[in-house]
C-alpha cells in the first residue's frame, strides 16, 4: 500500500470532519436558565422576512417591532427593556419549528410573537406546548383549536361570518360560489358558511379549491360565468387573491351585480391588486385602516412615519401590534422577579384594552373578543366601513361543531 497517498486521503477526509466539529465553537451561543433573569426581557419575533409569505409577514413583523420600540421608549416594563430576538423562518414550516425551539429553549423568551399561515402555527404548536411557553398568533384562522399556549389575536369564523353572510344574502342573494386555496382554512370557513346558509335557505352553487400560489383563473372565471351565482365567497390568500382580483376585473364582471366577498383580502392585497380592480368588492374584518378612532389614528400615523407614507396597516398587522401591548399589560400585573409564560397567560385572561379597532377583551379560551366590520373597497385602496357590529363578538373556535366548546379549562365536549 502506498503510505503517502494513504495519509493524504485520510488527512483530507479527517480535515473535513474536523472542520465540521471545530467550526462550531465560534458559533456557539450561551444558554440561559431562568426566564427574564437578566436586565431585560427577551421576546421572540418569528415572522418570515424571506420567502413566499414574507409579503404579509414583514408587515406583521414591522407592526410588532414598532410596538416593542414604543414600549421601550416609554421606559419598558418594570424598568426593564423588552429585548426583541428576531428570527427569520423563511416561509418554511420546518424552519419555523427550528427557530421556535431556539427562541423558546435556547434564548428563554418569555413569549414569542409570530406567523401568518396555519401550517406555521401548527409547526410551532407542539414546541410551545411542551415547553409551556406562550405563542402570540395575530392572524385570523380556522378555529377548532384550543391550545393553552397560544394567544389568538385574529378573528374566528363566527367573528367574520355571523355579521357578513345574512347581510350578503339580504343585499345580493344567497346563491354562493365558493373559491379558496386548497388548505384547511378555506375548507373550515366554507363549512361554517354552509351552516349559516342552511338557516337562510341559501345554496352553494359551486365550491372549489385551487393550489397555493395558483395564478391563472381563467377557468374559474368561466365557471363563474356559467353558474351565475349571486355572490363570490372567497378565501383565496396572498398572490392567488391578487391574481384572481385582477383577472376578475379584466373580465369585466361587475361588482355591483356580482361582488367578491373575501375573508382574507386586506389593505396589503388591495395595494397589489390596485384600487380600481378592487373597488366595489367587500371584505369582512375586525379592522380596516380607514376605521375612525383616536387609537387608530395614532397607530396609522406612527406606522407611516416609521416605515413610509405609502405603507398600509391591516387587520392582521393591527393584531400583531395590539398583542404586544396586551403582553405588556399582562407583564405589568406580574411580580418582576417571577415572570413565566404561563404567568403572563393567566394575567392576560379577562383583560380589556382599547385597540385601534375598539375595546377588545381576552377570553378565558385565549381567543379575543373583537368588533366585526364589513368594508367596501374604494378606488383609493381603502375600505369604507359599511356595516359595523353593534356589540363586541365573543370568539367561538368550535362554532361549526355543536357540542364542543373551548373554555379556560380546555376543550369541553358535551
Amino acid at each position: 500500500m502506498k503510505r503517502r497517498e494513504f495519509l493524504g486521503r485520510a488527512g483530507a477526509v479527517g480535515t473535513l470532519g474536523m472542520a465540521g466539529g471545530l467550526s462550531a465553537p465560534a458559533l456557539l451561543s450561551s444558554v440561559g436558565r431562568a426566564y427574564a433573569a437578566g436586565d431585560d426581557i427577551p421576546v421572540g419575533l418569528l415572522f418570515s422576512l424571506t420567502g413566499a409569505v414574507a409579503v404579509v409577514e414583514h408587515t406583521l413583523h414591522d407592526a410588532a417591532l414598532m410596538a416593542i420600540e414604543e414600549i421601550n421608549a416609554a421606559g419598558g416594563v418594570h424598568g426593564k427593556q423588552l429585548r426583541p430576538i428576531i428570527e427569520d423562518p423563511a416561509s418554511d414550516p420546518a424552519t419555523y419549528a427550528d427557530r421556535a425551539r431556539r427562541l423558546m429553549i435556547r434564548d428563554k423568551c418569555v413569549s414569542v410573537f409570530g406567523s401568518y399561515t396555519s401550517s406555521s402555527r401548527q409547526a410551532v404548536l407542539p414546541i410551545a406546548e411542551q415547553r409551556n411557553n406562550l405563542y402570540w398568533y395575530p392572524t385570523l384562522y380556522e378555529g377548532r383549536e384550543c391550545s393553552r399556549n397560544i394567544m389568538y389575536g385574529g378573528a374566528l369564523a363566527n367573528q367574520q361570518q355571523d355579521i357578513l353572510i345574512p347581510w350578503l344574502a339580504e343585499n345580493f342573494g344567497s346563491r354562493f360560489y365558493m373559491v379558496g386555496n386548497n388548505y384547511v382554512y378555506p375548507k373550515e370557513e366554507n363549512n361554517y358558511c354552509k351552516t349559516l346558509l342552511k338557516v337562510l335557505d341559501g345554496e352553494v352553487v359551486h365550491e372549489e379549491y385551487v393550489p397555493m400560489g395558483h395564478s391563472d383563473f381563467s377557468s374559474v372565471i368561466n365557471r363563474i360565468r356559467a353558474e351565475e351565482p349571486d355572490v363570490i365567497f372567497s378565501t383565496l390568500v396572498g398572490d392567488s387573491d391578487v391574481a384572481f382580483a385582477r383577472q376578475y376585473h379584466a373580465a369585466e364582471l361587475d361588482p355591483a351585480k356580482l361582488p367578491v366577498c373575501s375573508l382574507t383580502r386586506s389593505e396589503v392585497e388591495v395595494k397589489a391588486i390596485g384600487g380600481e380592480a378592487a373597488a366595489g368588492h367587500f371584505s369582512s374584518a375586525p379592522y380596516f385602516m380607514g376605521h375612525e378612532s383616536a387609537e387608530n389614528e395614532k397607530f396609522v400615523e406612527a406606522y407611516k412615519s416609521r416605515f413610509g407614507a405609502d405603507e398600509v396597516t391591516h387587520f392582521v398587522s393591527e393584531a400583531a401590534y395590539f398583542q404586544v401591548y396586551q403582553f405588556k399589560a399582562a407583564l405589568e400585573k406580574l411580580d418582576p422577579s417571577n415572570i413565566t409564560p404561563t404567568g403572563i397567560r393567566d394575567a392576560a385572561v379577562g383583560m380589556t384594552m382599547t385597540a385601534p379597532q375598539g375595546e377588545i377583551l381576552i377570553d378565558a379560551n385565549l381567543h379575543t373578543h373583537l368588533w366585526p366590520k364589513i368594508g367596501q373597497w374604494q378606488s383609493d385602496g381603502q375600505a369604507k366601513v359599511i356595516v359595523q357590529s353593534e356589540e363586541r363578538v365573543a370568539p367561538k373556535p368550535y362554532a361549526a361543531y355543536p357540542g364542543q366548546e373551548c373554555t379556560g379549562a380546555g376543550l369541553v365536549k358535551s
Partner: protein
Amino acid sequence: MDVVLNQIFAGLSFASILLIIALGLAIIYGTMGVINLAHGEFVMLGAYATWALQTHLGLGVVTALPLVFLAVAVVGWVIEKVIVQRLYTRPLDTILATWGIGIILQQAVRMGIGAESKFVKGPEWLSGNIEIGALVMSNYRIFVIFLSIMIVTGTWLLMTRTEFGMKLRAVIQNRGISECYGVEAKKVYSLTFAYGAGLAGIAGALITPLFSTIPTMGTGLVVDAFLVVIVGGLGSLVGTAAAAMLIGEVTALFSIVINDTLGRIAVLAGIILLIRFRPRGLFPADTRR
C-alpha cells in the same frame, strides 16, 4: 358547450403566456444545452422592470416592452459572460449554477425593492371584452395571444432569414466546424442567451397586469416552461409552440372535467409518459452536434 368554448380560449390564453416564457428557455436549451433554472427570475425581472418604468417614467405596459426586453437581455448577457459561459462542458452543473443565480436575483430584488407585491396597471385601451354569443374573450388576453404569435414568427425569421440566425444554426449543428469557418461561437452563445433572457422579460411584462408581482413569482413558472421545452423537443420552435398549446389546452380542459389540482397532476403524469416514450419530444430537430 359555452363552457367548453370559453375553456378553449382560456387554454389558449394560458398557452400564449407559457409559450413566451418557454420560447426563451427553448432557444437557450436548444443552442447551448443549458437548463436555465434562473429563467423564472428573468420573468420576474421583466415584471419589476415594467413596474419601475411605469412608476418612475409613467410608461404603459405595452410601450415599456422594448425597454424591458433590452434591460433583461443585458442582465442575461452579463450572467452568460460571467458564469454560464464557463459551464458549457458540464450541462448538468448548469442546472445547479442557474438555480443559485436565481436565488441571488430573487434576493437582490427583495433587498433592493422590497418583498411586498407591486402594482402594475394594465393598458387602458385593452380593457374590456369581445363577446361572441356566450364566448367572452378579454381584449388583453387576445392581445397577448397575438403578441406571442408575433414573437414566435419573429424568432423564426431571426433564426432562418438573418446572418445571425445562420451562424446560430451552424453552431447548434456543429460548434467545432463552425468555428473553423470563422463563426465566433462564444459571441453567438452570449447573444442567444441574452435574447432568451429578453424574451423572458417580455413575458414578465405581459403577465404583470394579470398576476401578482413579487420576488418569488418566477419560481413556479420555470418548471412549467421547462416541461414545455422538453415536450416540444430540442431546439424546435414549432415543437415548443405546439407543446405550449397542448399543455395549455389540456390543463384548461382537465380543469373543468376534474379540478385544477388533479388536472395539473394529470398533465404532469402525461408529460412523464411522453418523455419516457418520446424522449426527443414531439417535434425533434433533425440534428444536434
